[in-house]
């Protein structure tokens, strides 16, 4: 198998350049950080809108309107950082040249899928995270990677329990469906053998229903806490009895085993679920009940807005996002958000905190790296120092979302120590791309700028 990826990617990835900037540890000028000058264009536009009278309110109105303010590299850098967690000034310039709408379409293109590897490709555990990282760094749809990380942190499975390769396959499926409808994602995950094993549905029988999947399906995957009863959990567990996984030639597969299914009627969230002749359909009926409830979309909308917009999105935004998700796709939702006037307000910019994996991938890319080098054990550093093992979320609730919860003293310290690792080039190798921190953080002038608080922001 080819471990040194040579595929060239279409898209905005810059040509490979060498020696474009001095590497780290050159004497650095001070101050290391400059603040962004206010964009005079912005004032002109605002003035023009004011002059037009009333237009400003129309554009800034809740839920409605499309951003039509300036879209230069400053705005494009913000969009790029939020959508993909990586990028450089060239990438931002290219996006800016497209205009906001085409730029968003470009970012939300159908996800580029990595070559599907068989198990033998992964000679050791580290290679799983390296494979994902390399894809994120080189894909022409890096937005799909940040989104896949979101779904993986939402529909959690831990490799420690279900195995690395089953988790790899699950992540691939999430990537493929990442921009599609929430229905497709939920149907896929309910049948996913890694999930079935992670939440013990494979040991749930009519005599002893296991409630783990039933509980998390409602508490964490769809409705959120407080929108169902303990009895609903018991009944959902009964409806899903028989949804199990079988082992064949090194892999688990989804199957339905009628022998362990509970054939009595169930009462779930005010509906009777009972399908005597096609008992597997009861599980799908439960999913449909959950997919028919507005609360599901409000819960997902709130979570996506927290991940892509602000830590405390207002209810009007959440409701509008929920409507879009219910009637459409995740792509529709993100297109709405990324073209929303509020997305480009100053209060939105830099309002989120990079997760450790986003921090690492973004910094690798900004340092010109396009793959994890041999012997450069990023997987270990993420797990042991930065507190995010991409294949092992801390628990079934997933990771903290884009907040300062990530920045405890010890982890913040490790983020600073990580700068040296990310900006060093093993054996004097040349970076594959330009060294450019302009999208990674606002106000960067050199490597030492990475110490500034802004480097932690998204």
């Amino acid at each position, binding site marked *: 198998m080819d471990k040194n990826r040579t595929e060239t990617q279409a898209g905005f990835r810059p040509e490979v350049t060498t020696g474009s900037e001095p590497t780290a540890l050159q004497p650095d000028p001070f*101050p290391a950080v400059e603040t962004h000058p206010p964009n005079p264009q912005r004032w002109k536009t605002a003035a023009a809108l004011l002059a037009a009278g009333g237009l400003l309110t129309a554009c800034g109105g809740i839920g409605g309107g499309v951003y039509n303010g300036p879209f230069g590299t400053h705005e494009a850098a913000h969009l790029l950082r939020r959508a993909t967690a990586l990028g450089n000034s060239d990438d931002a310039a290219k996006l800016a040249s497209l205009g906001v709408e085409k730029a968003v379409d470009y970012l939300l293109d159908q996800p580029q899928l990595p070559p599907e590897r068989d198990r033998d490709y992964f000679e050791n555990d580290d290679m799983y995270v390296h494979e994902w990282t390399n894809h994120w760094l080189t894909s022409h749809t890096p937005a799909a990677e940040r989104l896949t990380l979101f779904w993986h942190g939402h529909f959690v499975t831990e490799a420690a329990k279900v195995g690395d390769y089953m988790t790899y396959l699950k992540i691939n499926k999430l990537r493929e469906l990442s921009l599609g409808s929430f229905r497709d994602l939920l149907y896929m995950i309910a049948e996913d053998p890694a999930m079935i094993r992670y939440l013990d549905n494979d040991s749930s029988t009519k005599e002893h229903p296991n409630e783990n999947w039933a509980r998390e399906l409602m508490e964490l995957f769809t409705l959120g806490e407080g929108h169902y009863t*303990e009895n609903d959990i018991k009944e959902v567990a009964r409806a899903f009895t028989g949804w199990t996984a079988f082992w064949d030639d090194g892999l688990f597969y989804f199957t339905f085993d009628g022998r362990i299914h509970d054939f009595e009627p169930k009462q779930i969230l005010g509906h009777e679920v009972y399908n005597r002749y096609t008992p597997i359909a009861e599980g799908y009926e439960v999913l449909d009940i959950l997919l028919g409830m507005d609360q599901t979309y409000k819960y997902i909308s709130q979570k996506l807005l927290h991940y892509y917009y602000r830590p405390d999105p207002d209810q009007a935004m959440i409701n509008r996002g929920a409507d879009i998700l219910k009637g459409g796709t995740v792509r529709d939702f993100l297109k709405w958000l990324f073209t929303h006037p509020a997305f480009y307000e100053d209060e939105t910019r830099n309002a989120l905190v990079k997760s450790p994996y986003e921090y690492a991938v973004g910094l690798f890319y900004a340092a010109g790296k396009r793959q994890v080098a041999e012997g450069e054990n990023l997987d270990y550093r993420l797990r042991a120092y930065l507190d995010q093992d991409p294949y092992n979320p801390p*628990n079934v609730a997933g990771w903290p979302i884009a907040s300062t919860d990530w920045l*405890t003293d010890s982890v*913040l310290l490790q983020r600073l120590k990580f700068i040296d690792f990310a900006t060093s080039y093993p054996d004097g190798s040349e970076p594959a791309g330009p060294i450019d921190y302009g999208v990674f953080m606002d106000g960067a002038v050199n490597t030492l700028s990475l110490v500034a608080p802004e480097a932690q922001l998204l």
Partner: protein
Amino acid sequence: MNRRSFIKRSLAAAAGLGLVPSLFSRTAMAAGGNGKILVIMHLFGGNDAVNTVIPYGQSEYTAYRPDIAIPTGQILNLDASGVTLGLHPAMQPLMDNYWNNGELAIVNSVGYPHHNRSHFFSTAVWNTADPDQTNKEGWLGPFIDEQNDPFCATNFGSELPRALRGVRVSGLSIDSIRGFGLNNNDWEEQIQSELLRQIRTTRSGTAEEVRQAMEHMLRSIDKVQGAADSAYAPTTTFPRTHYGRQLADVARLIKYDFDSQVYYTSAGGYDTHSDQGGVEGTHANNLRELSEALDAFRQEMITQGVWKDVMIMVFSEFGRRAAQNASAGTDHGKGGALFVAGGTVNGGVYGGEPQLAAGALDDGDLAVHTDFRRVYADAALHIGANPAELVGSGFEPLGTI
């Protein structure tokens, strides 16, 4: 000039210029505590109370648990009056050195009203001590706010538990003492000076939150690194386990006379839905490692002469079902078992014997008879806080200490 004094001087200079708001100057006001120590251990995942403190006299015990019941002969009989209870055999050190010395209080059927079987919700309840407001500050928040010192409570782990979050001040969170500092090389010295320069410029919004986190980190490093000195190494040998390493670091900070009155540790592995084992196995290993580490910690505290000041509280967010499931494990339940241990603890069994009879169970779970906030009230009194301020009124201290 060494690293620590450099940071200290730089921070002091910044504070003197009024650039570092309040944080640095607080230490002078702190030190308001009573010198007592509270060590909290969270067994995350829902510890199976029934196989920890075993009501082996009831016939339901073996009937409910054909694959995982502990044989009577191997149970460590507590020999407590009025109850037939025994500890899991993996807890021998706890039996020998805590229980038999009257230094272990066992609180049975502990929990809160309308118990929730979600790990996260239930953990949030234990962290806030308020089942109706799981998003507010931690139950120790008012104590930390009043001490006005982020060092008055220390968590070991990467994520600060809500219990240690106050409205204005939150506790410290570190992975370990050893790994907590910047090195003496050119690059990390550059990082350090740049950091000290950066934190002088206040920002707004999330950037300001990050700036404050950086300032907090610098002060924490400075302070904690003092404990790395070999003079503060524990003389007791701790087991090389997760619990052992954490409690060894707690012991080291206590020897260093660190500002913390509260130490918080947690460990996972208690969510035993399948193959939890009986005398041996997953659950037994967890309890064994816990007991061995606690044994070493007790010895070290005695050596340091502070055992009389220490209260240890071991809790889990809920107990598990009375009966096992089809996977030879147990699902999420309600009533749990809590331990209070220490040199001045009133040893014994609190809350009686958990009842396994079908009619006594709450929907298949051990019913809750003792509100955990009564134990928290004991803990509040121990550290010199007003119980009503920490857990609300109406929770009579249980009297475990």
